[in-house]
């Protein structure tokens, strides 16, 4: 299985958790309601959707469940199931809010946690409802029949066109946003940025953009909004692809074009993001990334468990020490702490994605194999190998069979859902309704004094957030094709909280980053855990969560606003407070992506916010 397939399956999880985190973000990031029981709505969405699409309960088999509407034409389809799951989760969210909303924030958190545990227990004990403690299976995700698809049939071509639509549209959207972002030289003061000249009109990326949108950038009605341009461009690309694949049969070419396009845009976006980073910072990042890879080498290579643990851990510790030393002692780099980590991670991931898989064939001198692996990983849109599919023979690479498999289609669908929900939430949050929510998070009394009833707003926020959680649950049901109650433990809420805080509470964009980071970590450590003997695999997996917990604490302490900051950073740039105060009363540390501020300056300026007699606390308390 190529690396690309691994990434596709992990991206599915990222989208599901991204939607889940969006829901929690609405509740906490925007309204300040800490909900430790968010997984309960996830559960409701998942089980409702499953019960809708399951066939009627067969009394003779061992599975028992309440309703199964799968045979009824419209009612038993996935569309209704997802809708039902979402709506029911939202309703339950509202019902749960009614008694608990007047509670203090920590009481609220614990009470809703208890309610989610109640839901879990109900599923576990009521065997008539959803098969009790056993797994609820027997349904299949939508449109799985036609796959894997090669484009030779109409249905296949249409499905392929849909995937291309999503991929092309999203990529064009990203490119559009990158093109329209203000030039990075506006805010940074580092001297190296002045050295790079900027020629505004004919930047290569603008040319790519015009090409990718089929020239629609010149049509004002469409070009006004990036999303509209992206959608139109994607639609056109999808139709073209479907037609080409069906009539001419150039599946591979289409796949290559789309995949290469995404890589180009990724490179452009990265370059823009790190445009004003000094060369020394970039080199440091690359060095750290390579160092991380080197540190992990003993794990697959050595046999003795104890020795390889010691070597890897000490290498990692050295790495952290070097990073700490560099960022605190060397002035030029201390402002770019996060960026260095970002560069290093991206470099590490590129090495893992492109270089590692070809080491095998490279070692045995199989140049064709190297080329093939590289090609497969670049053209991620298509699935290679296997018996089914169109065969191609390419010079220098060899023979390949090519098709598009179901996970890619599912991924396209999930990503589409995520983007759609993200757009809806963004619009809600930027609206007057969202402003009231943020006002409630900051100070409820003010909202009351202005004549608005915070209760209804909190209720609506909980309903929306829970509905989003239910939607994610329905998607999970689709992905997992079988539900067990142990999946819906409070651990899921913990992970969602982690994702939300890492990405930035209150920032919707951060959700995808947080989810991607978390699942990348999970994926990486799962692969690493495979290098250990099975007897201690449980211990290694537990250790993985310890590391997650420690990282969470570090993020909470040093970056309470998350990686992307508290609000969508397009508006707020470098100032500290502004109007977008996050839940923290005191410290503002890192802000948005374009630059960081040292802790000391923000700390002293904000001490004035604290209660005056707190200052005497240090003097009066005995020092240890």
């Amino acid at each position, binding site marked *: 299985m190529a690396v690309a397939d691994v990434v596709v399956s992990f991206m599915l999880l990222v989208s599901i958790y991204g939607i889940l985190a969006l829901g929690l973000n609405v509740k906490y990031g925007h309204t300040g309601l800490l909900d430790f029981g968010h997984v309960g709505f996830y559960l409701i969405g998942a089980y409702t959707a499953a019960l809708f699409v399951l066939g009627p309960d067969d009394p003779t088999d061992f599975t028992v469940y309440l309703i199964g509407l799968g045979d009824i034409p419209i009612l038993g389809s996935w569309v209704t199931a997802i809708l039902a799951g979402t709506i029911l989760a939202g309703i339950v969210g509202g019902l749960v809010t009614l008694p608990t909303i007047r509670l203090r924030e920590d009481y609220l958190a614990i009470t809703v946690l*208890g309610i989610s545990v109640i839901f879990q227990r109900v599923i576990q004990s009521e065997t008539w409802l959803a098969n009790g403690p056993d797994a609820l299976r027997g349904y299949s995700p939508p449109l799985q029949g036609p796959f894997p698809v090669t484009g030779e049939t109409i249905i296949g071509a249409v499905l392929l066109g849909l995937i291309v639509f999503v991929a092309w549209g999203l990529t064009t959207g990203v490119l559009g946003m990158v093109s329209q972002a203000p030039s990075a030289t506006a805010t940074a003061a580092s001297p190296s940025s002045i050295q790079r000249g900027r020629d505004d009109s004919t930047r290569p990326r603008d040319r790519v953009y015009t090409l990718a949108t089929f020239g629609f950038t010149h049509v004002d009605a469409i070009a006004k909004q990036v999303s509209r341009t992206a959608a139109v461009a994607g639609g056109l690309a999808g139709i073209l692809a479907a037609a080409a694949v069906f009539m001419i049969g150039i599946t591979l070419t289409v796949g290559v074009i789309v995949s290469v396009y995404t890589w180009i845009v990724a490179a452009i976006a990265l370059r823009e993001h790190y445009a004003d980073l000094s060369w020394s910072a970039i080199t440091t990042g690359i060095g750290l990334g390579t160092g991380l890879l080197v540190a992990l080498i003993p794990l697959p290579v050595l046999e003795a468990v104890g020795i390889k643990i010691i070597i890897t851990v000490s290498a990692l510790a050295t790495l952290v020490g070097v990073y700490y030393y560099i960022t605190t002692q060397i002035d030029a780099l201390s402002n770019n702490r996060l960026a260095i980590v970002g560069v290093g991670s991206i470099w590490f991931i590129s090495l893992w994605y492109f270089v590692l898989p070809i080491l095998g064939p490279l070692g045995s001198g199989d140049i064709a194999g190297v080329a093939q692996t590289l090609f497969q990983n670049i053209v991620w849109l298509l699935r290679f190998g296997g018996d089914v599919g169109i065969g191609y023979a390419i010079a220098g690479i060899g023979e390949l069979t090519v098709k598009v498999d179901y996970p890619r289609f599912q991924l396209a669908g999930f990503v589409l859902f995520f983007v759609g929900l993200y757009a809806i939430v963004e619009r809600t949050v930027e609206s007057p309704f969202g402003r009231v929510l943020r006002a409630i998070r900051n100070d409820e009394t003010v909202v009351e004094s202005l004549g608005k009833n915070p209760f209804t707003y909190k209720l609506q926020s909980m309903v929306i957030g829970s509905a989003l959680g239910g939607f994610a649950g329905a998607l999970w049901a689709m992905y997992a094709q079988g539900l067990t109650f142990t999946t819906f433990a409070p651990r899921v809420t913990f992970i969602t909280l982690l994702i939300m805080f890492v990405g930035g509470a209150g920032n919707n964009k951060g959700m995808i980053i947080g989810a991607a980071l978390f699942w990348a970590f999970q994926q990486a450590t799962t692969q690493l855990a495979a290098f250990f003997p099975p007897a201690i695999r449980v*211990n290694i997996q537990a250790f993985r969560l310890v590391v997650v*917990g420690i990282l969470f604490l570090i993020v909470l302490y040093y970056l309470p606003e998350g990686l992307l900051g508290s609000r969508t950073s397009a508006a707020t740039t470098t100032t500290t407070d502004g109007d977008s105060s996050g839940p923290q009363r005191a410290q503002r540390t890192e802000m948005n992506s374009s630059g960081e501020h040292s802790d000391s300056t923000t700390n002293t300026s904000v001490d004035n916010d604290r209660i005056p007699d707190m200052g005497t606390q240090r003097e009066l308390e005995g020092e240890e």
Partner: protein
Amino acid sequence: MILPFTLTICDMAPETGLLNAVVTGVVTGSIVALGATGLALVYDIAEVPNFAHGDLLTLGAYAALLVNKPDTVPVFELLAPSAQQVSLPGLGVLFVLSAIGVLGTVYHLGGRDALYGQWWGIDVPGRLGLTVHIVVAGAIGALVVLGTPSFGAALLFSVVLLGATVPLLESVIFRKFREKNIELALMLVVSLAVAFIVRFGIQTIFGGSIRFYSVETSIPFLGGALDVTLAKFFDFFIASDGLFISLQETRGGASKQLLVASYGWIEFAVILLAIIAVTYVALDRRSPAAIIGPRLTAALGSIVILAIGATAFWGGANGTVPDTTLVATRIRTSPLRIGIIVLAIVMMGALHYVLQATTLGKTMRATSDNRELALVRGINTRRVMMSVWIIAGLFAAVGGIMLGFLFSSITINLGFNLLLPMFAGVILGGISVYGAILGSYVVGLAMEIGIFAIPGLSATYRIPVAFVVLLAVLLLKPEGIIGGR
């Protein structure tokens, strides 16, 4: 509808009923109280809603394994050649750990100066303080080593170890966050992260298998061997001529009657009158600021009278159970459970004494009321916080071990399963120590009586029942039963 009592006409074993549910509820409540007391202390005084408290119980339970079953602990098993036996280096490790535990606990109370006796409250020369501390540390280490692998030594070891480790959470993690003045909800998230670190740290070391203590369960009692874990049945019969209590033990299907006590109605009336008299006198006294206030005196007095009356009037051990009874019910319990109730009461009594009679307790109450004012008054709030965490650690260790012993299985989720009832108890009673104690017993009783009273409710609904009760109370009184600031 299940009747709380069953009418028996023939000589048949009575069913367990409401009274049994009440007693089991008191047992559950005691265990919850052991945990909730520490949780409430930390919540109230250190202002940390400690989500990791359940996992601290687990930590205590697992730490005891080092002494009790050293050959099952990874890495340490290298020093334990066989089950229940530790080699000399292993004993050395245990000794050192216990000593470090004691010294570490003292260190938390005030740093290096505390080791020199600064925390004693009286002026002592530094060397004397240090010597005393080292001697005590050595003594406890010796006790643990000599007692290995008995249950008592394990308990002592775990208590001492947790007393030193738990305050580290405060000094390393929570204090840093508190200094950033983060809001309460975020502290909850921090403690959630800490909970995961603790729980999965334990799993990293110990793995996922289920453990259990190896404890000698038969202890010599009144001439014969008494197995503390076997169930004993107390049967209560109310017949026309009085109250009969029969104690039975069932081993392998054959039930053996241990004793029967009978109380006539007159004897009953005498005891009742004595209790009323004592209560009236106690409540009337109203002595100011005593450790044992009037209500507590009344309660204690009633219990003493009951005990005296029960033993005085019992009419000999070899009575017979009456044939026709009006009411009969049965309580199923074991000496272990009763022991847990007693242990919980003793520990809470000790805490009560500390809170009311010692300076430390007074400073704790003052800090809990108003921290700034306590600072102004010159109270070392940092030491107060550390002592609160130490006490929480002690209670968590005892609670965890008792929980592991009671359920004879120690898993990773042992403490977390108790976390929700603990929080329910703390919130129910209002966030204070006494409120938490009251709340825990209410939660324990609710859990057992709820399962008993609602037909068809399976035992997995225990925690949901506790939460429904919590929710009901919070609807009526959002600050909890006792709370209200």
